[in-house]
């Protein structure tokens, strides 16, 4: 059984910090081979000290990562990524500032050998509300927010407490309370953005300690009703940002569960995989008590 290549879409309007976030992830890739697809090579698409080699179409980055620009041919670029040897562990699409992210996910879903790992939208805490009111771009900005599984509310250092809380409230209204993670300078725990980081061997990924996030691992020794479990993990009461791991179903099949915000899916997995689900959530919400209702917890 070949494991499909996970694809995360990072969206958000111009200036929301997408490129900075990509560089932050590359700096904290921690052995994970990331393939970054950008709409265009910006002036500083990739921080210079990370670049190992560069030609017209592809930038080679320290640690086995690559960055390619796809212009108008995203599907073609994805097909190229699948042919890379060694194959990347995770593909990250930095969509253009005017792109509709759900359309990109739709395209990815058509391709054999890929699976989608959600849409992370960056929003500039200072300007998001005025962008959403722009006479030309407003509806595009709102469509991007509506597509988000996770919103990274960025540049919080540029606004005061009142503005921040008002913006969060507004975002909640626009998106029906999708999970919002605050950040400045696009610094977030990498696990927020890519589920591949969740299941990495080393769990001491930086930028988690200082945040209001917490990780826990659930181990389920008995077979479970997989769909029911996935639903519970995606429930608003638990407020998980992400969860990923393997369980044994009631029919005895090893199954992969992936949760991004409220979105969840399950798929069959190789028998050899170890059981256990890694959860990323907000401190307080993701308490042992809450999770104990679901399974045995080891944090």
């Amino acid at each position, binding site marked *: 059984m070949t494991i499909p290549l996970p694809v995360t879409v990072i969206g958000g309007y111009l200036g929301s910090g997408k490129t900075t976030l990509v560089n932050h992830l590359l700096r904290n890739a921690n052995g994970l081979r990331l393939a970054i697809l950008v709409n*265009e090579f910006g002036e500083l698409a990739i921080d210079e000290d990370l670049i190992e080699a560069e030609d017209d179409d592809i930038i080679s980055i320290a640690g086995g990562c690559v960055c390619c620009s796809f212009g*108008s*041919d*995203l599907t073609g670029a994805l097909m190229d990524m699948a042919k890379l040897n060694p194959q990347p562990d995770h593909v990250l699409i930095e969509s253009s500032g005017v792109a509709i992210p759900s359309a990109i996910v739709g395209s990815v879903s*058509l391709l054999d050998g890929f699976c989608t790992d959600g849409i992370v939208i960056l929003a500039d805490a200072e300007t998001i509300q005025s962008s959403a009111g722009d006479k030309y771009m407003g509806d595009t900005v709102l469509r991007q927010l509506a597509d988000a599984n996770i919103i990274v509310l960025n540049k919080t250092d540029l606004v005061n407490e009142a503005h921040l809380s008002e913006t969060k409230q507004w975002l909640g209204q626009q998106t029906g309370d999708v999970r919002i993670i605050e950040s400045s300078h696009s610094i977030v725990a990498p696990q927020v953005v890519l589920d591949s980081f969740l299941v990495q061997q080393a769990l001491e990924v930086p930028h988690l300690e200082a945040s209001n996030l917490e990780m826990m691992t659930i181990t389920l020794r008995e077979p479970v009703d997989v769909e029911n479990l996935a639903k519970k993990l995606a429930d608003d009461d638990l407020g998980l940002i992400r969860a990923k791991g393997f369980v044994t179903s009631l029919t005895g099949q090893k199954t992969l569960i992936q949760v991004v915000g409220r979105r969840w899916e399950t798929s069959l997995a190789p028998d050899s995989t170890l059981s256990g689900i890694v959860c990323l959530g907000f401190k307080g919400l993701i308490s042992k008590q809450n999770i104990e209702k679901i399974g045995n917890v080891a944090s």
Partner: protein
Amino acid sequence: MADTTIYSARKIITMNPARPTVSHVAVRDGKILAAGDLAELETWGNYKLDETFADKVLMPGLVEGHAHTMEGTLWRYVYCGFFDRGDPNGKVWDGLQTIEAILDRLKEAEVQIDDPDVPLSGWSLDPIYMDNTRVTRADLDSVSATRPIGVLHASGHILNVNTKALELGGLMKTGINHPGIPLGVDGYPTGELYGPETMTPVGVHVGFNRSLTDSDEQGLRDFAKLCVRTGVTTITDLAARLDDEGVEAMLNVTGEDDYPARVVPLQFFMGATPKKTVEKVVGLKARATDRLRLGRIKAVADGSIQGFSARMRWPGYHNGAPNGLWYTAPEQLAELYRLALAAGIQVHTHTNGDEATDMVLETLAPALRDVPSPNHRFTLQHCQLADAAQFRKMKELSMCVNLFANHHFYWGDEHYRLTVGPERALRMNACRTALETGVPMAIHSDAPVTPLGPFFTAWSAVNRLTASGRTQGEHEKIGVEAALYAITLGAAYTLHLDDEIGSIEVGKKADFAVLEDDPTEIGGDNLKDVRVWGTVQGGRIFAASKL
């Protein structure tokens, strides 16, 4: 001294108001030495009199300001269009009015391919003329169940494929949930694929590869043959990727002694920053030759009206479809415009919806305040829905416009009924308003979206007929003279080439359209039927019958 040839003609329409018609034109070194009567021309000294055109009408070589060289490549595929259309070799293919007729033509082509793995490709399908009957994979399976088959629609945005092609592309499965892939009652795709994202995975298996918009060498040569057959001596390739290999190929082919057209490729603004794009085009401009005019940029603001991806102002689409898509953000366009203006590089911008046109006008205005450029001639391409106020603003900003006159014929009925509704359909491609407002104007075919043929384009602007035979927008009709100006000097102006081409007068290139009929006598109703003998390009004679 170089030889001088004096051509006699039944009539020479010069587009030079000082002497609108003459009987002779003298050519030296590929340029026009003089236009007048024989006695005047003889004063230039020794000459050879050439009477090849004694019974023909000469016009300035026609200029197509918005086309794509891929038209040349597409003719290697099976033509499946509704209307009669001439190929590069002069054969006119009958239009096909039923799905059965399309399948029959595909079957004829299919049996001629020996290798069972070679795909069968067709193009220019348009179901709207056939009561919107959709072609299904079962239809194409009847042509062949074992050979992958793909037929591209006239719009270029939809691809019909058979079951074999879906299998090869990995889409022959149930459970697909994508707005660009309609499913049949059996849960499998019907075989229609909408948009490049859905077309690409299958397209590569049916002959439509990823660099579809790039023309290869043979395609460029075939494209030029179409130019000769339609009287065109200068033509644009309006969104070229222009990678190193492509530029080399274009330089080589257009540099061939018998290449009959001047090609103006515009660098597509996509996949590179404004700064890199402008730097690249400055470099390309330095490599330009007489027959390959590198050094211009094309940007795209929104999508298409019939695809509901154009950006519309209130009240939006007539059928209630949600507003379309932006392809470039205002901030990116603003930076592109500033840098291009500062570098003296011209930018043409595609807008279809009126909101996209608003955005471009509002973005260019401050860029021009920062970088005053009296001669910029930035041009709006298509600009189909612009209203009178927008044309006034174009005038204030010294912009040019290139309106999609052919579109009015091919899709005007759809716009009236479905996309924008009656009132706005009447004002689409408002040629008269453009001219009365004083906006320099060209009109275009967007070949291969509609067939190349400036006399057809001129006819469309003069008559404003739709495919169903209705006159749509009486008020926006223009006269024959204005239409002929638009397909010569008008288009040349939008390319900064009106000092070299577009009229028959001393010092300009010896570029002529050689005609059997006189377009100023044939009548506006018949303008599309002007017969073309061939062209003269840079003083070289190209007879359509000898290509």
